[in-house]
């Protein structure tokens, strides 16, 4: 056999979220510090495929990307009767913590993008001690809405087409055409109303203004990285958020937009590899300190 087979392996784990078992699809690769990756609204864990196939990083980290319920290969739960899907802050937080618990991950690093970046901030506010480090990509405590989300789910506009077309502008013009199309393809495949339901968390329920000031980065380091071409969560949104959090580390990523890990994986690697290396160094020095 001579064909290249990528190193990540996909499996399903049954996770109790708020009293109901959910069949969650995840892919993982590597060994070392657990690093859990959260996808953007209306997409799925495929956004992280380049990180999962990165041999240098998977030599040091156990990288795990899961599909949120209703997304990718994680179906809605058996109890779902067709009601409108709406993600809430509480539900999202429960889901991430329950997934990490189900896999028995010890103080994982969590890296999330967009809504994943927002929930990372909430994890930092309420559950910092459970995590080794938190990384928010395209993250802010709040950002100004720029379209009516009712366009995302209505019978006279194709949901997949409009979701992809809306977010297409969030990709940097310099990003490779193939990666741009792949990033948008996931949006075209999303279930009806799922992107809109995720944005309920982002726009309505998950406003963290006035709460991020309580984040203690000594309990859990926090890194925020935002692409300069992201006009949804702008660099100014991230810088404003970070200014309220003592110790938060900020990077503005040039020639990247709202989907750094999938729209231009090579360029994103230049920014995220040093962050992960720093977390690894801190983890090693902390461990050595414990043995002194």
């Amino acid at each position, binding site marked *: 056999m001579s064909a290249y087979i990528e190193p990540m392996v996909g499996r399903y784990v049954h996770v109790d979220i708020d009293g109901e078992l959910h069949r969650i699809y995840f892919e993982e690769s590597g060994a070392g510090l657990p690093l859990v990756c959260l996808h953007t609204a209306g997409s799925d864990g495929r956004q992280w495929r380049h990180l999962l196939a990165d041999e240098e990083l998977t030599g040091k980290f156990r990288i795990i990307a899961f599909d949120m319920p209703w997304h990718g290969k994680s179906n809605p739960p058996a109890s779902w009767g067709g009601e409108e899907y709406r993600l809430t802050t509480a539900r999202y937080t429960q889901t991430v913590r329950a997934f990490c618990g189900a896999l028995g991950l010890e103080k994982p690093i969590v890296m999330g993008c967009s809504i994943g970046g927002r929930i990372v901030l909430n994890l930092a506010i309420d559950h910092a001690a459970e995590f080794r480090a938190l990384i928010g990509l395209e993250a802010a405590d709040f950002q100004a809405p720029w379209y009516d989300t009712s366009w995302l789910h209505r019978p006279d*506009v194709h949901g997949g087409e409009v979701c992809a*077309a809306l977010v*297409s*502008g*969030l990709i*940097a*013009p310099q990003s490779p055409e193939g990666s741009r199309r792949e990033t948008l393809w996931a949006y075209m495949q999303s279930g009806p109303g799922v992107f809109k339901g995720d944005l309920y968390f982002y726009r309505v329920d998950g406003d963290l203004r006035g709460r991020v000031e309580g984040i203690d980065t000594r309990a859990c380091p926090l890194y925020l990285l935002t692409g300069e*071409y992201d*006009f949804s969560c702008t660099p100014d949104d991230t810088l404003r958020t970070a200014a309220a959090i003592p110790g938060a580390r900020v990077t503005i990523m040039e020639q990247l937009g709202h989907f750094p890990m999938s729209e231009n994986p090579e360029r994103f690697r230049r920014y995220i590899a040093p962050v992960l290396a720093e977390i690894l160094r801190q983890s090693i020095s902390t461990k050595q300190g414990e043995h002194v």
Partner: protein
Amino acid sequence: MSALQGNACLKPMTPAPDATDAALIAAFAGIPKLLDQAPALIFRGRFLDCECRLGPTDHPFQASIRGGRMIELTPASGLMRSWRFSYRASLVAWAEYWKPAPRPGWHDLLALTKREQAILEGDLQPFMAHLQYFKDVLAPRLHHARMAS
């Protein structure tokens, strides 16, 4: 620059040196022909029949689209034609949007509305139902890049 005067909705900007009315009109005039050379784009608009206004804020064009083709594009002033939606932007916005690598925040039709350099109004259903189509039709740099790829 007359196009930016007297419009309270737009943030005042200093137009780029090449953002002249003549250059902009010439660029818009070329859009129907560029579209004719992009069969994949016409295919995406194959169910679209629409009258709309596109172009500079103060002197937009009336675009007649039938089956995804732009069969007429003419200055709209004085014609008293009906239209379903209008997307108008400042001259400086069009000049920046049409660059191969626009500055951040100037690189998308809806980035321009967010920064109040463009106005989207009317019945938005045909625009939203064909959002990527309109983004691509109005971005000649994308026609060239995608036709070449």
